């Protein structure tokens, strides 16, 4: 087990390195850098000015060198620019400060400076991640029990009418992406055209003070899309368990149906959904980005959009790192959890 976790962690680190390198390459392609230079400097820079601006700030040293600096395994650049000023990476790309450290990358805890938010990247990510954490927490609270209940009810009698109607409902939710269900919810429950106005169409106020009125719709929008898939997986695993020999034995012994479902079947039927739920979390990230944009909830997904549309390199890299870690960590947890939950694997 220890070896397994160690190996998985190794692969995880390698994957994270590769992915951040890819993101790094994509964000520092020359047209992107040009855009950055024009954003930071002024919009009417000539090509030569752009080149010198970028050269002065160490962007043209070569990708590997830059990536190493960002990572903190290579010393940050100190360049005497064409304009006579000497700049260094470790003084925020500004004029060299005397006490600036030699290395300043992620490994030293320096995530860089966000050009959009004018704030250090780690602060931006921390505050926004907390907001998205709140959203995700409520999504989980709604989604997991809902999906499990639907799945168990559908799977306990395969082919029954209850099964058919619940399965169809699950298919409908998986066929409705967040930007469709969100728009429909907003239209029905918040618009003055329909006139119900039960909820608010914007979740901006939920960032400080989440209430049912401003937070239910975003939560429901994300939860619904993931719910159908988990419910279907739960149903599949439940139907499989219900045809097992020991369930038949219990039935013949005269155990009541409710007891069979709750005490005998449920525990074994929940192993597979656990992994599915874990693997679903990265997919929720998609939903988070869409819903935060749609409902104007300024969390992590919203930051991703801001960072990407302004090519905020440091922030984008941090966002990518967080995203990749979430994906890989959930994979790891689902693998380990599967081993722990499944006695057949655990004992061998």
């Amino acid at each position, binding site marked *: 087990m220890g070896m397994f976790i160690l190996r998985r962690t190794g692969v995880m680190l390698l994957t994270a390195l590769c992915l951040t390198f890819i993101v790094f390459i994509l964000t520092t392609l020359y047209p992107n850098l040009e855009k950055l230079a024009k954003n930071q400097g002024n919009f009417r820079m000539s090509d030569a000015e752009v080149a010198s601006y970028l050269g002065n700030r160490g962007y043209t040293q070569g990708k590997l060198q830059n990536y190493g600096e960002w990572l903190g395994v290579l010393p940050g650049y100190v360049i005497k620019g064409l304009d006579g000023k000497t700049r260094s990476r470790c003084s925020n790309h500004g004029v060299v400060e005397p006490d600036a450290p030699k290395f300043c990358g992620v490994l030293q805890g320096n995530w860089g400076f966000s050009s959009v938010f004018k704030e250090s990247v780690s602060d931006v990510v921390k505050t926004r991640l907390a907001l998205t954490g709140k959203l995700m927490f409520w999504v989980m609270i709604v989604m997991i029990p809902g999906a499990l209940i639907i799945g168990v009810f559908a799977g306990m009698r395969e082919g029954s009418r209850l099964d058919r109607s619940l399965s169809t409902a699950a*298919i409908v939710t998986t066929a409705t992406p967040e930007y469709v269900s969100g728009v429909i919810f907003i239209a029905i429950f918040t618009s003055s055209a329909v006139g119900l106005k039960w909820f608010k169409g914007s979740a901006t106020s939920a960032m400080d003070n989440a209430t049912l009125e401003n937070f239910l719709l975003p939560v429901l929008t994300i939860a619904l899309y993931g719910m159908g898939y988990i419910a279907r997986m739960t149903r599949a695993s439940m139907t499989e368990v219900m045809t097992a020999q020991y369930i038949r034995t219990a039935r013949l012994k005269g155990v009541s149906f409710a007891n069979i479902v709750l005490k005998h079947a449920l525990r074994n039927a929940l192993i597979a959904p656990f992994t599915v739920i874990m693997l679903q979390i990265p997919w929720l990230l998609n939903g988070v980005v869409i819903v935060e944009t749609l409902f104007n909830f300024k969390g992590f997904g919203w930051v991703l959009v801001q960072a990407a549309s302004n090519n905020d390199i440091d922030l984008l890299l941090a966002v990518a790192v967080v995203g990749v870690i979430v994906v890989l960590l959930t994979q790891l947890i689902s693998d380990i959890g599967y081993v722990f939950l499944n006695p057949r694997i655990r004992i061998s």
Partner: protein
Amino acid sequence: MQHLSWTGTLGAYLNPLFLTALICFLALAVAAIARGFSPRADGPNLINPTPPSVSLMGPSLIIGLVLWLLSLSGVSLLAPLALGNMSLSLIVCLILGAAAGYALYQISAEMIFKLVWLAFYVTLLLFGLYLVIGLFVKPATMGIVGAISQRLIPTWIALAVTFVLSILFKRKLGLYGKLFDSPIGMIGLGLVLFWIFTAIFGAGFDWIATHDPLAQVSGMKNKHPGIPLQGATEADYPYYLLGGDTLARDVFSRAIFGSGIVIVIAPAATIFAFMVGITLGLPAGYFGGRLDTVLSFLSNLVLAFPVILLFFLLVTPEIVQTGLPNYLAVILFVFPVIFIAVAQYSKNRLKPGFLTLQFPILLIICIWLYLSLVSETGKPVDVLPPMLDLFDVPAEILLVFVSVVFVNSPTAFRIVRGLTLDVKTRDYVAAAQTRGEGPWYIMLWEILPNVRGPLIVDFCLRIGYATILLGTLGFFGLGLESESPDWGTTINAGRKLLSVYLAPPLVPAFSLMSLVLGLNLLADGLREESLRD
């Protein structure tokens, strides 16, 4: 001219009937679901009968809560009470629910379900009546619903012909024919075919749309459905059937033309993704070893990328400048060529004349098509002279296409690899090996045909997913230009004024949803039917 209402003058007679049927159906459906929760639904459990009190609880609670929610929303007769005193109304509703639950318990489950279906068919019939009457009368008589139905005549005819022919010959049509044994599969197929035909006749031949999807008509900005066209001449269609959007364009026509974009890109991208997945997944699963390790690592790498982040990085105008999509296209589009060439070579290489005549011709055609697809005049990859270049794909479409293929390929790879691992230990594979067949023949002509069932099912689901991805791209304004009529872009454009003008974003939203739903139901039906034998 008159503002067109939803159901026109005939609606005054039909609407009350339709509403009654619909309400009956919904009420009965709630009752049926509630009854489904009662353990007596499957017949008495003789050994350990559930006491009636337990059986009653589920239905009563559900009906009670539904009643309460209805009265809270001001729909039912109990509304005045509910708004006055919440807890009292909850108690009253629960008591009513218990009474209804008891009544339900007395009727057999069969009876209720029969009634549900009856109500459902009556509702459907009445809705069909709107559509059928709409075919023959003027727009003012049957309103917007009828007028839209009239515009869709080519689609209806094609649908009817396909269904009648398929049902007549369903025993001879293999898996496709079996689809007509499952209601779910039939509904799914109907929805998918509806959009395919609408795309062909609407976006392809321009028989359905009423106006140019990009034309802006003054005075038609932000109008509600059924608005008569201002300054219409004889040649123009006199209405904006589903209203005008913020740029005074016809919402209905945009939705129709949007279907054309989706119906072309989503399946094509999925086919390419499957080609990549099959060409790499088969050897990875069959040979295993280091090849498998490397390919699996690469696919996990792409899968670990949050899709949206990838889109934001990949689908930008700056990336188009660097020519990255063209290079990606060069890599991704070569796989179908490899697939076809290897498949034909491994099967027919011993046939006389094949290697000298047919194979070279096939190869030349494939490579020519490949080069025409990849090469673009004035772009980084420009290998064919313009004279030989068969078609040019616009840069932004190519970019969207390539990124959807790129995102979908690793999943296809994983599925094919898993299926191959499962199947390669079967006896027929061993038999082929003993016969001395080459590995590629075994992979492409022994393993692949035998895993086609799950692959087809997954293919349908993937098209749906690709549709959702396309919508996501449009929703974030990535890739396609901002006035493109595709559904995602239109939803994004319409959502800003959503609280006042519902039609512009809701029409494409429901279109997209119905197409994806159709694909999912189709996949479900296919899975059920292919498991049956």
